[in-house]
């Protein structure tokens, strides 16, 4: 009978997943994910890889905004820092295993610099400060031609590990998805241990966090660093996956997309970052399919696709804010609880 599982030790009770069944479900899910490259065509593999990259970036933003309460519009910029660092390093011969983590570290440093205003600023004011970060980095990436290739962009060789060339999306899948899983695992652990709890404490009550001995400013910067590290790694993977990056890859709209992902998925929830990122990556693809399926009967629909995408995005966020403010993660939790206690759901 599944209507309860009791732990006999604190170690067991503190496990990363609440029940044994959760572990099984997860294992099945991971197996299903790794079946994708064996069944999907390159179109859907491209989508899957972009979704996994978005999951890392959204988790990064969620660490900062959802868990630590620091609103940021700088995500596209930190993504750009990671991507351009990768482009620069890879074009100077650095292998993937160096370029990718270094991209994360450089983005983390950038995040810390632009996180300094969080010492004094909160909420909307901090959002404005991070917006400044966005424009500074956007300006730099379109004008520092020696490193970024300017508005024309720059190309990135495909990643290699031990001589194996991850040259297409099918192969990249086995690089990107494990990286994504590792980052999720790290985030999940982070929030059941000391540092992550300090982040959440700062979000909920910064004064009492300080009084409880949490060095609030240091931990805010740390949150900016961890968050931007995630986003930087996502940027690095994006560079390797897209093969060509230009400032057009990192408009403000990307930062807003990422905020949309964590709002729709659930602020302060690792699962929410996954659900939101996958949802918003799939949404335009589904719209695109629908538009092209209908284009036979309505040839002008293709031209409406772009505005349609924006409108559906906006509408989805508004609907979530009104009806499901805790996001998809909470919806999932309620469904799961209903099944867990089934047939005694009431």
């Amino acid at each position, binding site marked *: 009978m599944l209507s309860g599982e009791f732990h006999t030790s604190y170690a067991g009770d503190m496990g990363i997943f609440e029940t044994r069944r959760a572990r099984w479900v997860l294992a099945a899910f991971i197996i299903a994910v790794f079946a994708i490259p064996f069944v999907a*065509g*390159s*179109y859907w*593999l*491209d989508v899957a890889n972009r979704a996994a990259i978005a999951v890392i970036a959204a988790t990064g933003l969620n660490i900062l905004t959802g868990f630590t309460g620091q609103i940021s519009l700088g995500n596209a910029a930190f993504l750009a820092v990671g991507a351009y660092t990768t482009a620069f390093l890879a074009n100077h011969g650095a292998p993937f295993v160096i370029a990718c983590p270094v991209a994360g570290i450089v983005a983390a440093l950038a995040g810390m610099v632009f996180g300094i205003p969080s010492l004094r600023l909160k909420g909307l004011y901090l959002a404005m400060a991070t917006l400044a970060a966005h424009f500074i980095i956007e300006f730099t990436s*379109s004008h520092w031609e020696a490193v970024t290739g300017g*508005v*024309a*962009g720059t*190309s990135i060789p495909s990643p290699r590990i031990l001589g194996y060339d991850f040259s*297409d*999306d099918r192969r990249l899948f086995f690089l990107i998805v494990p990286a994504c899983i590792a980052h999720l695992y790290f985030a999940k652990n982070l929030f059941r241990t000391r540092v992550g709890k300090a982040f959440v404490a700062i979000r909920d009550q910064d004064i009492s966090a300080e009084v409880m001995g949490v060095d609030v400013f240091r931990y805010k910067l740390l949150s900016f660093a961890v968050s931007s590290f995630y986003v930087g790694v996502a940027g690095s993977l994006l560079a390797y996956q*897209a*093969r*060509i*990056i*230009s400032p*057009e*890859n990192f408009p403000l709209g990307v930062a807003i997309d990422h905020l949309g992902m964590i709002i729709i998925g659930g602020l302060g929830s690792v699962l929410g970052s996954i659900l939101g990122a996958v949802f918003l990556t799939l949404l335009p693809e589904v719209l695109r399919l629908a538009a092209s399926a209908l284009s036979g009967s309505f040839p002008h629909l*293709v*031209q409406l*696709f*772009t505005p349609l995408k924006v409108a559906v995005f906006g509408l989805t966020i508004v609907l979530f804010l009104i009806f499901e403010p805790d996001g998809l993660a909470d919806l999932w939790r309620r469904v799961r609880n209903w099944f867990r206690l089934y047939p005694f759901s009431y």
Partner: protein
Amino acid sequence: MKLISSALLVLCLAASAQAQQEIKVGGIFDLTGITSDVGKPYAQGVRDAVAWTNESGGINGKKIRLVDVDYGYKIPEAVAAYKRMTGDEKVIMINGWGTGDTEGLKAQVNQEKIPYVSASFSAHLTDPSKTPYNFFVGPSYSDGLRAWLRWVKEDWKDKSRNAKVAFFYGDNAYGKSPIEAGRRFCKDTGVDLVDEEIVPGAFQDATSQLLNMKQKGADYAYINVTTTGVSTILRDAKKLGLPTKFGSNPYGFGEALPQVAKEAAEGVTGVMVDVPFGEDVPGMKRLVDFHQKNHPSDTHDTFYVRGWTYVLVWSEALKRADKAGKLSGEGVKTALETLKDFDLGGLTAPVTYTSSDHRPTTTVNIYQIKNGKLTKAKQYEMERKPEWLGL
């Protein structure tokens, strides 16, 4: 069981037979982005020319299937579209559009041997030792600008000093493409480049840039943006009463310009790669016939003609590759490089590609707007200098 498997086999055979009859070509167009003013008629030209080719016998009996997409002039969208087209759709070649995306994809198309015939006339795409799979149909942006500067030199009558010119261009790869070539050519011909003004991707006002230019005292100015931007600049210049003589690149100059910019367009010169729609040249008949038959109420322009010339060029290459039994990316590239003085019936200059030079032509026509009409003013044969290859 046996029945099912044989049924499957039949289906597979039918599908592959179907596929054999069809040649898939990718189309990456701008229907909604900042260059959609000229991107839309161009895309229609390509689509119509494909339909016309299929009606008139196809590629030695095989039909072309155009797999096209609107990428909104966004490089990442073009990259994603490229992936889809080469991945699942397995297109044999691509008819592309913008300079930024075409230059961005050049390494990949080379690696994957996908001929990329793009509407970008960027001279950076003409050196086969660097970009063996890139092609376009017309003189390069750089040769266009050089020819226009030559026209300036001739038009300038005051021998006491050199003519002063300014460049206006967008902050993107297309805008910047011929600028370096133009800077050098000014020095070589004895024209003084006094000012460069950068305009944003989409803009409604160019007054501040024009006032800067006025201060520098430019006698001539070359505008390297698409028609909407050109007419904005012309209109604002007229408002400010500037005496500057303006010239335009091949995507800023077409039938729409005198219609939109009205008197402000009078006297403006421009590089024309293709003749205006309906021009009395032998190659125009099939366009007009197709137009009469399928959409007689539409209006067309030189960009629509450009779409046609592209299809006429690459469909000829497909035919030659098919005849040679090499209907592959590499085969199409080789076939393109066999085109020698390929005649387009006067729609644009004859086209030649060799394995060491992808400049299709160096003939540049300068048109001028007179009484609201596009009128041919001058034709230049630019030198095929080796040091200009790729610049």
